[in-house]
């Protein structure tokens, strides 16, 4: 990936490293852990939608499969959290192929609806299959992640774990984007017929990026249940899929960095909306509507425009009085 992104990754690492110095309160750390978990999903979804142009309204389903697999295997069959996470990824990849393969031919609204249907089925089943998932009340007692003898229990350690995983995934994803595969994906998004004629196996790459984004959602799901040490269907409903969409739309469709920023903002926003107590839904809807209408290209789009505006103004001023 370009020199430019190396700098950004380094900057990102520095921020993760020093943020807890500013923000030592466990409450903010706990919220930032959720932000990191959603950033992981947002990166995968941003690649799927921003680069390959595939709409998915059901990523909470993959998030749920990863979460429930980790929770059930670690609590009831005391698997090691990492083993459970990998098994979760295997199940999710299988589910992604099941949903992804037939939906290759679908586009636009149809694909959105097929994935939405999948997400809802996972949500309803996780509530109904009481034998497996303890039903709608969910269950607690999910152990924390233990890495090389050191259990990651405190908010600070969870913060570092989640955001480091997010950074690694960001690096992997940037490598993919700035490679032959990334260009193939963007060419599919640009013009599928031309891309196909240029030798890009459109079906294969669409499925690969769909499965990749599902796997990331599964990893995030596992981290989610280990962070909350509890799992229940309410964490995986349609609102969650929509939240993921809002995060990448607000960040700016095409940029992975935008997705991470969108994830951070839309995890922190509800905490600050609490001041409106009963009517935070109303404010949330209004902010979202405003953002979708006036910032079609999200925050990165806005800031790029502002900076270009500033630069162009600055240029014109220096030109007429050098």
């Amino acid at each position: 990936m370009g020199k430019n992104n190396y700098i950004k990754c380094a900057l990102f690492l520095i921020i993760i490293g020093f943020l807890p110095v500013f923000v030592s309160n466990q409450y903010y750390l706990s919220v930032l852990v959720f932000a990191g978990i959603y950033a992981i999903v947002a990166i995968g979804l941003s690649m799927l939608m921003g680069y390959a142009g595939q709409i998915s309204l059901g990523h909470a389903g993959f998030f749920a499969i990863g979460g429930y697999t980790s929770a059930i295997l670690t609590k009831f069959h005391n698997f090691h959290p990492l083993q459970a996470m990998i098994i979760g990824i295997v199940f999710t990849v299988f589910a992604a192929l099941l949903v992804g393969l037939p939906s290759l031919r679908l586009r636009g609204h149809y694909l959105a609806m097929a994935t939405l249907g999948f997400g809802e089925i996972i949500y309803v089943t996780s509530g109904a299959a009481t034998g497996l998932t303890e039903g709608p009340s969910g269950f607690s007692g999910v152990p924390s992640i233990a890495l090389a003898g050191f259990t990651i229990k405190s908010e600070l350690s969870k913060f570092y774990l989640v955001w480091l995983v997010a950074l690694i995934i960001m690096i992997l994803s940037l490598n993919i984007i700035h490679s032959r595969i990334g260009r193939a994906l963007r060419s599919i998004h640009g013009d599928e017929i031309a891309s196909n004629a240029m030798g890009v196996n459109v079906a294969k790459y669409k499925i690969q990026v769909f499965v990749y984004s599902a796997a990331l959602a599964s990893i995030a799901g596992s981290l989610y249940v280990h962070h909350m040490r509890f799992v229940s269907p309410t964490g995986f409903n349609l609102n969650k899929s929509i939240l993921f969409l809002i995060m990448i739309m607000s960040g700016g469709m095409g940029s992975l960095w935008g997705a991470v920023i969108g994830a951070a903002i839309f995890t922190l926003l509800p905490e600050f909306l609490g001041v409106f107590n009963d009517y935070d839904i109303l404010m949330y809807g209004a902010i979202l509507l405003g953002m979708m209408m006036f910032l079609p290209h999200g925050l990165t789009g806005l800031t790029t425009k502002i900076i270009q505006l500033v630069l162009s103004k600055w240029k014109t001023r220096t030109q007429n009085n050098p």
Partner: protein
Amino acid sequence: MKVHKLLFAGIITILVLCLVPGCSKKTEAPKPPIKIGAIFSVTGPAAKLGGPEKNTVLMIQDQINAAGGINGQMIEVIVEDDQGVEENTINALQKLIHRDNVVAIIGPTRSGNGIAAAPICEEAKVPLVSCAATLVQLYPGKDISKSMYRYVFKTPQNDSHCARTIYADCQKKGFTKVALITGTTAFGAAGRVELQTRASDFGITIVADETYPADATDLTPILTKIKSQNPQALINWSIVAAQGLIAGQMKQIDLNCQLYQSHGFGNPAYITEAAEGVLFPAGRLLVVDDIDSSNKQYSVLKKFKNDYETKFPDEEVSTFAGHGYDALWLVVNAIKANGADRESIRTGLEATKNFVGTAGVFNMSPTDHCGLADDAFAMVTVKGGSFRLVDAVQ
């Protein structure tokens, strides 16, 4: 490409700045108020429970402060809304415990949220008085006799109380063929387990066992299926809006067996003309006028009902508001008796003896963190469009 680097740094710095907690310093009161945290589902699917709970807790806070607080120290109840989602509950807990450093926490409203909150409060050693009924999940091996979390208490009656009361009434009336219809929420699912396991103790066979989702509106298909099993009694156990419709829809398809509801039915908004004759166990708060004044709870219930309905004229008091009342008073009494730090509140709560609350008389002990006996429930029916005590209208 230079533009991107600039923009990126800009956003990250803004983000960090808005994170630094710049809460303004409150002017120092003579004695800082005792901070008690509360988490209710004020919005979201369980809004009809969380709303009254929040109203009650804030009402009582004002009453206590007006009367000079606890030994001169004011109390401040910080209410958080988790919208019925466990993730928000956990964030709210972290906020109350670590940022507002409250001495005790009341709530949450829904059982799922209660189960998520319990281990966190246990670890942070903060007493939690839950208003969620179904915490059976927390007891090792689901046997409530075993001592559960040391720091977790709960005010609503146990589901087993309710199931036993219903079955006892069925046995009295000679109903042996019973149909179950439960909502697929945490509350409904736990009730279903209780009803399934306890049926044989009362010689009752379950002829139908149906469930319906939280957003269900038309239950006639399920009731039609149940009608074909011709049960003698139908027990509905749910907390969702559909519980108000079942009686009407039963009438529509001429399913005329006796309808029992769970203690989740204790909200006057669910009373429709078709609900005449429905039976359900509930705290005596709903039928204050029917209980004779000699009953220990009479004065407490009367006062609370009047206070609530004068402060919130367009609402009738419900058992959910009662849970809020009991939880806050349990904590306040513990503070009065033992002191305002977390450890002494815990021991104070555990030592609560015959505290007369809205749900019944609480007698806590190290192994029983609910403290309500079976007599906490009274059979209530709907007569003349309002809740009436069964014994009073016999």
